[in-house]
């Protein structure tokens, strides 16, 4: 293995200074980063371990009713936090549908946001990949691309962002708190990841040294807790990345949808907020016909990037189903098979 420096700074400012150097990267739980290093996909000179920074592992209720989640909170700890799961059930469900129990116990909030694509060519260092090596070309464009993007892709890159967690977060207007050399700033999660354009190597708005310190969900997001679901279609009931997923959250008053939030996963280089669909749903009575209309609006700009036209059809159907599930109401408990089409089957509902 390539030799690299490993440092474990004591303070956030030390961490930022150490990580601003060329060749340095942050190490959180390493569930993605170490795989990339072992495969030679990334070859950093310096790892800045941020898991021991104090104060980044808390889940805090804010005075305005929102919640602030430290970047080092583990995926499993967040999902199993009772208050959090009750207030943001779709987020908890999404977290529990990702990876495996062992990985969730380790993986951090910050790392989940910044996990890299699962495009096989990105991991195969002998393949051309603009994301790995700008200007090299995109082997996926004419290759095995059944699971690639149908929205927001460019000729330079057709990869998707694989996170489940980010999908409901985007729907619920989560905000990323970033600390960098020039101080602290905030970016809406929806604007945090970048579409590939001509620069697929630039995946987020972070500058060198920028550290995610926390994630915030605003108090309005609680308003959806009674009707919020995440639905993930995957090739195995056990763990697999989403083929397509959707988070649907609605606020229903007097039998009418007052406000809807909808986002898709597995379709683009970022978690995809479907604002056009939300508009279709605002102020209407819950009804599958309207859901279908909303779904078509969400996918209006979609086009296959290869052998994946089925994902467009699938995404529409997932939206319809996710809205039906959300309208039916958040279940009392997170289902034993979180976010699974099979979670609603009576008789297989065990405790999570």
């Amino acid at each position, binding site marked *: *293995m*390539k*030799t690299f420096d490993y440092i474990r700074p004591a303070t956030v400012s030390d961490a930022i200074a150490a990580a601003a150097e060329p060749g340095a990267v942050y190490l959180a739980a390493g569930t993605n980063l170490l795989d990339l290093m072992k495969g*030679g996909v990334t070859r950093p000179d310096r790892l800045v371990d941020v898991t021991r920074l104090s104060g980044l592992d808390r889940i805090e209720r804010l005075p305005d009713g929102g919640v602030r989640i430290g970047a080092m909170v583990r995926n499993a700890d967040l999902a199993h936090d009772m208050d959090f799961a009750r207030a943001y059930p779709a987020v908890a469900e999404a977290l529990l549908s990702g990876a495996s129990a062992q990985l969730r116990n380790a993986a951090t909030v910050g790392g989940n946001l910044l996990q890299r694509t*699962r495009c*096989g*060519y990105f*991991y*195969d*260092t*002998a*393949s051309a990949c603009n994301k790995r090596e700008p200007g090299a070309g995109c*082997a996926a464009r*004419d*290759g*095995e691309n*059944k699971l690639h993007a149908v929205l927001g892709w460019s000729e330079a890159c057709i990869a998707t962002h694989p996170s489940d967690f980010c999908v409901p977060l985007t729907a619920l207007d989560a905000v990323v708190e970033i600390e960098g050399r020039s101080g602290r700033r905030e970016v809406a999660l929806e604007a945090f990841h970048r579409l590939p354009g001509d620069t697929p190597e630039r995946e987020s708005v972070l500058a060198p040294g920028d550290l995610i310190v926390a994630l915030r969900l605003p108090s309005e997001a609680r308003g959806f807790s009674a009707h919020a679901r995440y639905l993930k*279609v*995957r*090739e*195995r*009931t*056990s763990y*697999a*990345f989403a*083929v397509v997923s959707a988070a649907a959250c609605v606020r229903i008053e007097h039998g009418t949808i007052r406000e809807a939030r909808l986002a898709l996963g597995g379709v683009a280089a970022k978690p995809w907020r479907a604002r056009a669909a939300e508009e279709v749903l605002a102020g209407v009575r819950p009804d599958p016909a309207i859901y279908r209309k909303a779904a078509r609006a969400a996918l209006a700009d979609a086009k296959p990037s290869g052998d*994946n036209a*089925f994902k467009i*059809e*699938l995404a529409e*159907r*997932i939206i*319809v*189903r996710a809205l039906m599930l959300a309208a039916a109401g958040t279940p009392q408990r997170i289902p034993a*098979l979180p976010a*699974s*089409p*099979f979670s*609603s*089957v*009576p*008789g*297989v509902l065990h405790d999570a």
Partner: protein
Amino acid sequence: MTPEIINLSRDPAHVRHGSNIGQPLTRRDGILKVKGEARYAADNHPPGLLYAVLAVSSIARGRVTFLDVPAAKRHPGVVEVMTPANRPPLAEDPDAKTNPFMFRLDLLQNDKVRYANQSIAVVIAETLEAATEGAALLAPQYDVLPPRIGLDSNESFVPPVVGIGNPSEIRRGDVEADLAAASKRIEATYDTPAQYHNAMEPHAIVAAWDGDRLSVDTPSQGLAMAQGRIAGLFGISPANIHIRSPFLGGGFGSKGFISGPQLLGILAARLVGRPVKLVLRREQMYGPVGHRAPTRQTMRIGVDGDGVLTAIDHHAKTVSSTFDDFFEPAADASHTLYASPAIATSHEAVRVDTGTPLFMRAPGEATGSIVLESAIDEMAFACGMDPLAFRLKNYADVEPISGKPFSSKALRQCYAQGAERFGWAKRPLAPRAMRDEAGLLVGWGMGTATFPALMFQAEARAVVRSDGSGVMETGAHDMGQGAWTAFAQIAADGLGLDLEQVEFKSGTSDLPDAGIAGGSAHTATAGSAIHNAGAAVIAKLADLAMGDKRSPLFGAGNAGVIARGGRLHRRDDETRSESYADILGRAGLSAIEARGNSAADPAAQSNYAMHAHGAVFAEVKVDPDLGQIRVTRMVGAFAAGRVINPRMVQSQLFGGMIWGVSFALHEQAVMDCRSGRILNANLGEYHIPVNADVPSLDVLTVDEHDPHVNALGIKGVGEIGITGSAGAVANAVWHATGVRVRRFPIGIDDLVMGLTA
């Protein structure tokens, strides 16, 4: 190296004295494994050990033109880099093939690259990390030629033989005429993908030379063959080679022949003059250790007006590598199951730039079975018949391809008992006719399982000691299937001792050859040798006693004796008995020994068709809009001759059925056809089913007494579980959805477009 002491438990749970065979003893190595104390090959660290890491090719065809050896050697900790330039000489060309069981190896014999992930250099270092980085620093350059990947990438030809020497084409009756005359015909083409070995334990070796003597820790399904192969390549006597393989972390055929990377570990140790450990990385398994070849199979079947099969034509196209021959005998699956006056099976192949495909659990049987069972299901529906009724109507009372009677065949009972347990009678004929309470589509499918009952050759040595205890020795292989336990049970019965009185020695190459652990024949083969060795030593003891006037057994003569509980009893008067200790003591012997052999009985082989059978029933649920599939229930009923240990048999059958689910729904190598590289060479994305994917399995074993297969009546259960199961799941998906997918594994993309809500 000091010999390893293996603390197997002498009294597993559920010990029963008397007859040990048939008892569900727990694995004697179970506690060791749970505690992490079972020493696998890679757990060995002899003093002075160095670590070797393979550098593998990223191209599939061409030549290595440059390796930055100086850069690798400069890296701290790197001791040596082995390339074609300095690889120690071999006594035999790795590309020589003097018998069909000898597969060509990549041992750095030249700069040619013939598949992606082929070894092109070995870096040897003081640490694993240094060797790993050294391998990365080699930064190879290549002359690249366009690889030929996939079933249509090269000229097709008819292989001379398929599988292990089976004819490539077999015809019985006139298929074309019977198809033309059939009242119903179906013709359909199915695709099965390449699958790669992913045993939990990757191939690993610790090799140490002492002059011309070689000590090796490595997992092996064929110790004697590995020993012979190493001896040939290095020009040393097999007696100088000591291989230890007490436990395998799974083999599934990939450890049947010693692989190139394992031999490179031995070469590396030779080069540096120190012990070397080499362990494949997960992604390095995708090339040099064999895999299941992709196939495209066309079935044409015809029936008469009563739904009686009149013709089966099964054609399989497959691949082999450009440099060696192994042809997945997929079409042979149609030889034995369904009665038909006309049967034709044939194969064609293309050569592609991948590693040589080899044996992978049920090679040919699994690939052929999912296709045959799908086609039978399609025909049953075309005839408007229940799939079980259709199979019963076409039940084969003699082996269809040969006309021979079966040595035993309890398939009818398997059908009946499996169907009963599953509740098959309630199945509606029409597809898409069942839903659960949540609106999910429910489908029921079935498949017939079959696997030949094979016998290889083995030897065992039995000893009875003057303290009344016994020893049984044979170099058998525990791949996790329970050999340490099942063979000890056979040994104890063979020696007429309780289990704790028997020391069973196994898993090393200095013991008698137990044959290969493959073809589902290990228990039958090595078990028969153990049984015969036991009988031989008991016969010697009996001779001692019966010829000695002082023995209560004197003159038992024709009546004979039986051995039980450490004593010989007169068969005609069990009150007259004598202990082994007394017999040996009086004879002044400290021990008595005998050997036993086993081999197939040629007369029985030519008179009978010998196969295990089974019937598998599966339930799946499918989301009607989203196309996601889940297997919710499977029942398998199997008849496989005598069961030595029901617990081990059940877990073999479970494992096979789970692989059937994998075959139908999950497993495939995603290959980039332009580069010949596999894009999902990791366990995150090479999908196999785990607990959540297989909620409920039920296995029944049907009693079957077979006097012909071997002395113990064992047929073997290692592979049969995949056959039938894969087709049952695929047929259940069709029954749930009405969508017939003929490309495996069946995926969401296949169903989304087919399902209209």
